[in-house]
């Protein structure tokens, strides 16, 4: 498989870029932020995503989705990164759609997948607990109770948790294994607090105190949540890498335009070799990041990234590269780059959040090292 997009994937990319730049450019994010929108996300836009076939890009056709793969999900994520559009796509369309499509019961799939694909439902995965992504250090517990389970624990960084129609909660069912539970947020004992984040995107804290769920709330088999979760996370990580690429490259493009037009000392600043070399270096880094990300997405589709190492390489590389891109963007813009009015600061904040999502660059480099045995 050549490491370039196919004709169909290129058409999807053009459709997504065109749709978002028209309907949800950076001004869309600003409007939601400045009006202190209660949801922080446009439900109309999410419905439009459904109508375009974007929301259910990985959902099988029999459940109303587009039946496409990881590369196409990455194309969507990159487009969202480019316009900084807040969207339930990552939480619902990637993570929860993957968990349900791979492990959901017939009833769960029938109830939720068509609604996600149509952009009618927002689902959220409650996984992380501490300030850093450490799935192996999970303390949330699910104990057998009545005909089901009783859930206890505290989760953070739950994407779209404050507006979720359903939560998928990861909890330990014994000391080592974990299970996944589909939880109605209105269940007694569920408390949800929106956390307004630095990038004006949406996440929440979720606390679960003796939350009683039925046995059929389980997604997948008992104690078998780990492989489902890993699969969804690998896809999520590769898509987050794509989103980082979109945000980082857009910040770079804005900066290049500035280098071509801004004058200082009677010259275009892009004529200064000190800045040219930094821009050329950054270009090289972005090329590597893109190749690593497309490589990971293609391997996921081919079913040859079972351990998720390609996704880790992509997430680690994309995180560092996008960070460099936004730092250079602000620095090369000088004072104007520090103003709220100018967009590059928004890219800097967004990249910081995406860097933490599903493990930062160090987490993923460490994963690679462990896998190689050192």
């Amino acid at each position, binding site marked *: 498989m050549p*490491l370039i997009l196919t004709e169909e994937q290129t058409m999807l990319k053009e459709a997504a870029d065109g749709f978002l730049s028209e309907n949800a450019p950076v001004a869309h994010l600003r409007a939601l932020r400045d009006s202190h929108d209660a949801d922080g996300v446009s439900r109309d836009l999410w419905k439009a995503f459904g109508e375009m076939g974007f929301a259910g890009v990985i959902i099988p056709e029999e459940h109303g989705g587009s039946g496409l793969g990881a590369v196409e999900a990455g194309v969507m994520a990159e487009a969202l990164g480019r316009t900084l559009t807040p969207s339930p796509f990552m939480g619902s369309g990637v993570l929860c759609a993957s968990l349900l499509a791979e492990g959901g019961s017939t009833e769960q799939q029938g109830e939720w997948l068509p609604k996600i694909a149509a952009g009618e439902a927002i689902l959220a995965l409650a996984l992380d607990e501490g300030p850093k992504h450490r799935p192996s250090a999970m303390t949330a517990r699910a104990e057998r109770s009545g005909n089901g389970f009783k859930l206890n624990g505290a989760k953070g960084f739950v994407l779209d948790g404050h507006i979720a129609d359903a939560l998928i909660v990861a909890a330990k069912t014994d000391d080592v294994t974990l299970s996944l539970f589909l939880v109605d947020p209105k269940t007694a004992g569920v408390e949800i607090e929106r956390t307004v984040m630095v990038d004006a995107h949406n996440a929440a804290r979720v606390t679960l105190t003796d939350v009683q769920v039925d046995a059929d709330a389980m997604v997948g088999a008992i104690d078998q949540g780990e492989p489902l979760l890993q699969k969804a996370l690998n896809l999520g990580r590769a898509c987050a890498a794509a989103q980082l690429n979109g945000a980082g490259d857009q910040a770079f493009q804005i900066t290049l335009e500035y280098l*071509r037009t801004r004058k200082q000392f009677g010259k275009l600043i892009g004529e200064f070799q000190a800045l*040219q070399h930094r821009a050329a270096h950054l270009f090289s880094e972005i090329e590597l990041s893109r*190749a*690593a990300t497309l490589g990971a997405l293609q391997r996921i589709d081919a079913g040859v990234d079972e351990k998720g190492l390609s996704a880790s390489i*992509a997430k680690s590389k994309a995180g560092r590269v996008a960070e460099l891109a936004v730092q250079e963007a602000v620095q090369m813009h000088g004072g104007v780059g520090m103003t709220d009015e100018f967009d590059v600061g928004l890219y800097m904040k967004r990249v910081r959040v995406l860097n933490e999502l599903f493990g930062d660059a160090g987490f993923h*480099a460490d994963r690679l*090292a462990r896998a190689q045995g*050192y």
Partner: protein
Amino acid sequence: MTDLETFRAETRAWLEANCPAEVRGPMDSEEDRVWGGRNPTFKTPAHKLWMERMGAKGWTAPEWPAEYGGGGLSREEAKVLHSELRRIDAQLALSSFGIWMLGPALLQFGTEEQKKRFLPEIVRGEIRWCQGYSEPGAGSDLAGIQTRAVDEGDHWIVNGQKVWTSYADKADWIFCLVRTDPDAPKHLGISFVLFDMTTPGVTTKPITLISGKSPFCETFFDDVRVEKANLVGTLNRGWDVAKALLAHERTMIGAMGSIASGRPMGLVAADSLGVDSDARLEDPMLRARIAELEVDLAAFNLAMERVGDQVKARQVSPAIASMLKYYGSELNKRRHEILMTAGGSDTLEWESERSGHGSAARDWLRTKANSIEGGTSEIQLNIIAKHLLQLPGA
């Protein structure tokens, strides 16, 4: 089975039957390379056999047309061949500037007669080439070359000096930039010619480097007679040939960044430093550097592959070779700095059996040239800024 699967099965069977055990596994040092030529040296008879077998199949240049001795493989087939070679950890059958640099230029610019004459013997490793580009006064600013070729009817008389001519003392022929019109603007009076290194008037003198080794030479031309039939491309338009060839050279040097030694670097480091109770490399700072480099190496390998696919799909400017050259060179330097750190004082021994006569140190020092030869890193960044980013005045 698809055609590609059939090809893989056949390739695997052929390699199993034809790749000798002695040429499997990582090379101990640069000295193990097979360069071929009129006076070849081989580490073992198996290395000779391996070159001859691969050459006969055209697999030393798998994607060149079969009519010129190449393998005639599609890009997809060539990828399969490479992955099968990697699978058995086969060493490179033939290292060759003819394959990496001159051949692609001849395929693009050479006459039919030149292709038929030179390409097959390049593929079979029967002739060794060197490159006459740089001059004492023209390194990075290659268009400033002064070596003169004066028209004498059916031939030229060449006078001048080249420098940094890799392996000039061991090469059979040279591909060379000469100034054929001293009055033209500097890019427009240069021609690209080929001649035999045994032609009267050609002398070479090795340059000893900080590594103690000497791949490079100074090369002197004193009234050297060059046949006009050996002009490649158009008279005074040698710059076009040179540029195309440089793109191949840059890709080749950049690719050095992707050559991973057989054993992951973290395990090499663990051999000398040990691991903690959690099986992590004892030195956490070095472990982090290695892990980060491994991520970059993996990403770079994919970028090399992607650029190849983009070039094939005509989606990218040829200047993209500068990105690979720049990044690959810097990556290779980082890799060898880390290998020296991981080896500690053992790698500092310049002369001992234990250190392979300082092979790690000599390789480390050699890599410092990667970001100078074939155009410095700064020149590559200039090219990226000008041709890929369209920055003003670049």
